[in-house]
């Protein structure tokens, strides 16, 4: 199956990115195709300049690892502009897209999981 997960809130401050990453790992291991769509403040999770404390998890790195395993990471481009995240800051394997990509995911995915803000 193709399963899409949309996140809307910032990483660290809230746990939605943690939930999405954990769920994506499980779903990928089950053989599903997984896409993560980052909307609004969740786009912060793709900023590779994020420097958490050493004892804390590195969310952009975890996203990067998911991407290496084949998970698509889509970033709402307008949302990124509003948060001052430019193309050169984003993690490898993620893509700036927008609402047309959201529409394609909503249309093509077998399951669409939105984590409401």
């Amino acid at each position, binding site marked *: 199956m193709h399963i899409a997960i*949309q996140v*809307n809130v910032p990483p660290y401050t809230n746990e939605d990115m943690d939930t999405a990453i954990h769920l994506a790992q499980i779903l990928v291991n089950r053989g599903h195709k997984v896409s993560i769509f980052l*909307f*609004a403040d969740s786009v912060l999770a793709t900023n590779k300049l994020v420097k958490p404390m050493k004892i804390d998890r590195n969310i952009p790195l975890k996203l990067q690892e998911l991407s290496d395993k084949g998970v698509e990471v889509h970033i709402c481009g307008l949302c990124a502009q509003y948060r001052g995240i430019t193309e050169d800051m984003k993690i490898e394997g993620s893509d700036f897209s*927008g*609402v*047309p990509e*959201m*529409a*394609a995911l*909503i*249309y093509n995915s077998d399951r*669409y999981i*939105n984590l*409401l*803000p």
Partner: protein
Amino acid sequence: MKKVLFAVYNSPVGSIWINEALRSAFGMYGEDLEPVVLFVNEAVLAVRKQCKPEIIGCLPLSITFKYLEKYNTQVYAIKEDLEKYSIKENEIEPHWNLKTIIKEELPDFVHSFDKVVFF
């Protein structure tokens, strides 16, 4: 053709969610999708003509009106929530072309969509 519901439960003023829900809805027409928008709780405040986030410097709701017209996007508000804020029919901005729905009908209404996104 698949049906998608964008339901907004956040206040229309001082947060981005109504504008983001409408922007998302308008983006759906690029695929074979039919978006519908639903205002829940305080989000219903959006429908009054005098509701103007631009008064406090935020993005106006009115920037969505030309797309609402172009696509004829259906917008619903919950009747009981409109009543809670004493919003009368003649106060509603005509551009929303608003339909109302009562709470009792909501479970079936929401289940009639293929995908549901709350904001």
